[in-house]
């Protein structure tokens, strides 16, 4: 029986090649999108999973007086906890603030994804060693453990264990090799060095052993059954005992399982996910799968007329309804299975692109078990969606009606099919509208007047390991040397790059007439006298700093500061105390965007103290980019031969602020394309069947003198109506969703009705093109031919 069914199914697929192709291809595309999305979502939801995940916590430092929340804690806390609290089985610390300088074949570079960890790191997080072990790593400070791919980078295929690497002008011995971090790990590091190595630097040691400095991320593993709140209280007791009792800096704990979706940390070193994003993207994945399945259902029921004869014959020769139901269920399963196989091939093919889009690193072979799981779930859900309705419909035919020529498909089935088409187009229109809104917002970000000029500026920083006197000397000499280069237009130094300024203080300023209850958080920017010129900042009133030292204690404010701090008028000349330095307000700069457009521009104090500065910004003259970069490199090598140079362009830094948004924009565009392609495929074949069904009618109409235009519009009218309804339903939904999304930006475009109108027009145009292809062909056909075949 199975063989008979299989053969009928297979020969049906072959016989209707075009529609079968559309059917299976559309299904595969939808399934591929769904599988990739579910793979990602599954990864996000299972971050840092390990058997004892629930027992592991990360400590969080809170400074409630100024609203700071850090994931870092003092160095000595872990040891204190371990000795004082038997409830804590294990502690592990992490430091990624210090970037080691690695030398490879004479080139220096920063070990960017290198982490300093302590003895129990590897046992806490269940690292599996490919070679070597932690024993020697823990015993000797100048040790390093590499991931497999990082080891290959240094040593190719040679055995790395026992070899040495030149780091920070010391030789580190390779003690072990661990696998590359899995995509669901928060710890995406390529190499590990012992914290004890970091502490061999007396300056760092002195700094970090101070209980006031929180530079280490501490993980604790509680004994099974230990209450987290009690443990937190005890840890706070330990801090009070060790730290300065005057500072009320409580510590809290977050479970390793919750860490990935944590939102309150300022400047986290980990990549965090967003639960809502995961939910929305999973929902889109489900919808894409749904519209692909709708195609299948619509095509199978549209084709039902063709299968009616077979169904009737089978019934007359003795098939029961359940026999036929089984047959069509089986057929759906076969189609879904073929689509699933194609899906796996497509996934394999598109995985690199997907990795690029998501910034993840899924490996096909490594992810295969999860992929198969996810594909299995997708296959089953698509199978259920695909099979039941068509099978019920097809098995319901009564043979006597079929042979009598009674129309098999009732109006009800047509309405059902139309409803499904509407769902497809609702999803498509929402995604197109979303793409448009996001695109407009991204364009707005690119084109908004920032108040400074970001193009042709390259910036780099002096390492913070060098002492203040040498740094201040370098600021002067390197600036002079850079200015001597013809490719350099101007040079300025500051305490941070302009694009995204994080440095701020609270309660550090005073001025005449200050409301004493007011302790606003003020952004702080230390600059030299050339900053305004180099960055092209505009002044509202007053002047910028002069070259002479008389401005050393003076400040420039931005317009927002003038307003929010309620400075007395006239502002220029007012006394202003900043960080204990008493000076004057000498100028008001026009507001410029010094943060991402997600955040509001706040009050800013620009001051002139050179001790703070370590960043260079170099404006390149004309398009001498290459010469300018060469000049920067020469000057750097001459003054700091022992440190690698890392530079970046201001506009790159600017783009990085919107990495997530760019990703969203790309993903939405892709989702919209997939949705519209699948929906169009569906419409394409539905029209094809419509044409087949109405060949005779079209022929008669033509003989009666209907023009081609009339027939095309007759065939299109129905679908145009459906798309129109979809647009009406989709627009308010899209408006609601996008309005929510755009609230993420403080500086944003207004959402206009015409964005939805354009989305509607796009969907309508695509549909019309799809339909006209078939409709014109049918309308042009010779009516004599079509009537004869009847």
């Amino acid at each position, binding site marked *: 029986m199975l063989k008979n069914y299989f*053969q*009928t199914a297979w*020969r049906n697929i072959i016989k209707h090649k075009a529609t079968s192709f559309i059917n299976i291809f559309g299904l595969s595309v939808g399934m591929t999108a769904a599988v990739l999305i579910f793979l990602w979502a599954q990864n996000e939801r299972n971050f840092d999973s390990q058997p004892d995940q629930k027992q592991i916590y990360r400590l969080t430092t809170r400074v409630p007086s100024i609203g700071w929340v850090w994931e870092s804690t003092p160095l000595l806390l872990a040891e204190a906890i371990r000795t004082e609290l038997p409830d804590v089985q294990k502690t592990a610390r992490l430091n990624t603030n210090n970037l080691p300088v690695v030398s490879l074949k004479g080139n220096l570079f920063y070990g960017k994804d290198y982490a300093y960890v302590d003895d129990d790191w590897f046992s806490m997080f269940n690292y599996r060693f490919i070679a070597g072990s932690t024993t020697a790593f823990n015993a000797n400070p100048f040790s390093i453990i590499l991931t497999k791919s990082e080891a290959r980078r240094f040593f190719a295929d040679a055995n790395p264990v026992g070899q040495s690497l030149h780091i920070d002008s010391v030789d580190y011995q390779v003690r072990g090799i661990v696998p590359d971090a899995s995509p669901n790990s928060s710890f995406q590091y390529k190499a590990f060095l012992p914290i004890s190595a970091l502490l061999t630097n007396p300056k760092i040691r002195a700094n970090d052993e101070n209980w006031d400095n929180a530079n280490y991320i501490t993980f604790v593993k509680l004994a099974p059954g230990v209450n987290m709140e009690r443990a937190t209280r005890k840890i706070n007791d330990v801090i009070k005992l060790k730290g300065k009792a005057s500072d009320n800096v409580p510590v809290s704990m977050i479970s390793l399982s919750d860490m990935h979706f944590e939102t309150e940390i300022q400047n986290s070193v980990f990549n965090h996910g967003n639960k809502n994003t995961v939910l929305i993207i999973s929902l889109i994945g489900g919808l894409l799968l749904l519209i692909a399945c709708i195609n299948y259902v619509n095509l199978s029921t549209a084709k039902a007329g063709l299968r009616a004869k*077979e169904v009737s*014959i*089978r019934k007359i*020769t*003795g098939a029961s309804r359940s*026999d036929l139901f089984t047959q069509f269920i089986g057929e759906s399963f076969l189609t879904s299975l073929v689509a699933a196989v194609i899906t796996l091939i497509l996934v394999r093919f598109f995985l690199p692109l997907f990795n690029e889009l998501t910034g993840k690193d899924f490996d096909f072979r490594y992810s295969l078990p999860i992929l198969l799981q996810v594909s299995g779930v997708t296959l089953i859900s698509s199978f259920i969606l695909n099979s039941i309705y068509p099978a019920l419909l097809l098995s319901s035919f009564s043979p006597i009606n079929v*042979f009598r020529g009674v129309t098999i498909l009732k109006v009800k089935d047509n309405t059902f099919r139309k409803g499904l088409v509407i769902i497809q187009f609702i999803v498509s229109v929402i995604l197109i509208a979303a793409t448009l809104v996001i695109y407009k917002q991204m364009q707005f970000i690119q084109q908004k007047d920032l108040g400074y000029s970001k193009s042709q500026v390259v910036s780099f920083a002096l390492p913070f390991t060098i002492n203040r006197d040498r740094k201040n000397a370098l600021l002067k000499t390197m600036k002079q040397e850079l200015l001597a280069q013809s490719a350099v237009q101007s040079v300025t130094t500051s305490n941070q790059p302009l694009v995204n300024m994080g440095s701020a203080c609270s309660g550090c300023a005073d001025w005449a007439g200050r409301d004493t209850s007011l302790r606003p958080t003020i952004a702080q920017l230390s600059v030299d006298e050339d900053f305004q010129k180099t960055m092209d900042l505009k002044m509202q009133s007053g002047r910028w700093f002069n070259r002479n030292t008389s401005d050393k204690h003076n400040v420039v404010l931005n317009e927002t500061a003038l307003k929010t701090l309620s400075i007395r008028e006239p502002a220029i000349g007012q006394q202003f105390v900043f960080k204990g330095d008493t000076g004057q307000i000498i100028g008001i700069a026009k507001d410029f965007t010094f943060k991402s457009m997600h955040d509001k521009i706040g009050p800013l104090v620009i001051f002139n103290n050179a001790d703070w500065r370590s960043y260079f910004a170099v404006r390149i003259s004309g398009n001498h980019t290459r010469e300018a970069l060469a000049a920067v490199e020469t000057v750097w090598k001459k003054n700091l031969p022992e440190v690698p140079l890392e530079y970046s362009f201001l506009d790159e830094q600017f783009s990085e602020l919107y990495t997530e948004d760019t990703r969203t924009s790309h993903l939405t565009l892709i989702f919209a394309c997939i949705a519209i392609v699948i929906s169009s495929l569906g419409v394409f074949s539905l029209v094809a069947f419509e044409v087949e069904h109405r060949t005779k009618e079209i022929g008669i109409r033509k003989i009666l003198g209907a023009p081609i235009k009339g027939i095309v519009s007759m065939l299109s009218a129905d679908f145009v109506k459906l798309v129109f309804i979809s647009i009406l339903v989709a627009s308010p939904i899209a408006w609601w969703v996008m309005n929510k999304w755009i609230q993420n930006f403080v500086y944003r475009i207004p959402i206009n009705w015409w964005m939805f109108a354009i989305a509607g027009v796009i969907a309508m145009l695509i549909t019309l093109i799809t339909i006209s292809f078939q409709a014109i062909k049918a309308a042009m056909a010779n009516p004599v031919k079509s009537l004869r075949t009847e």
Partner: protein
Amino acid sequence: MIALKNIFKWYNVGGNRNFILKDINLDIQQGEFISIMGPSGSGKSTLLNIIGMLDEASEGTYIFQDQEVFRLKEKQRSQLYKDYIGFVFQAYHLIDELTVYENIETPLIYKDMKSSERKAIVADILDRFGIVGKKDLFPNQLSGGQQQLVGIARALASKPKLILADEPTGNLNSKQGEEIMELFKQLNKEDGITIIQVTHSEKNAAYGSRIINLLDGRIDTNTTL
């Protein structure tokens, strides 16, 4: 074998009853070869469909092999015709996606027969009808006569006691038609299969043992040859 008592069949058309069959009373014995004749619209096919249990009468009693058909449940009824009845159609009604062999095999599949058994039966029939060489062809690769031959072969595969044929030669030329009618006659004589055919042709009707003439839904004449 078959007893029809006071069979009426009507459709409601706009409040009026449109009668297709009016008070049909008919007894058919095992081994008969009956031809139903009559002008278009006289109810021939409807009568055949009722006998074949594809359609139900609006009123009346139908007894088949001592069972009252209209009182049976759907399942029992389909079991009944699965076991006893084979159909042959004017338009052959073969499954286009299946080969000759597979078409003939289909009814056996629904009888839950074992594969080896099915093979033997199909091979036997193919041999008897002389179409062994055509077993792997698809219906559209055959002539009309050959297709009807396959249609009859399929009807015979489940060893029915009764064959219902609705204008079996309607789409065939006269030579092919004659061959099919000869085959029916032979099946009736040698295998003792009861045959009821609907036909327009006097000549074909003459192959049977009894001719029933329908006119406007009533039995007009009932002639034993």
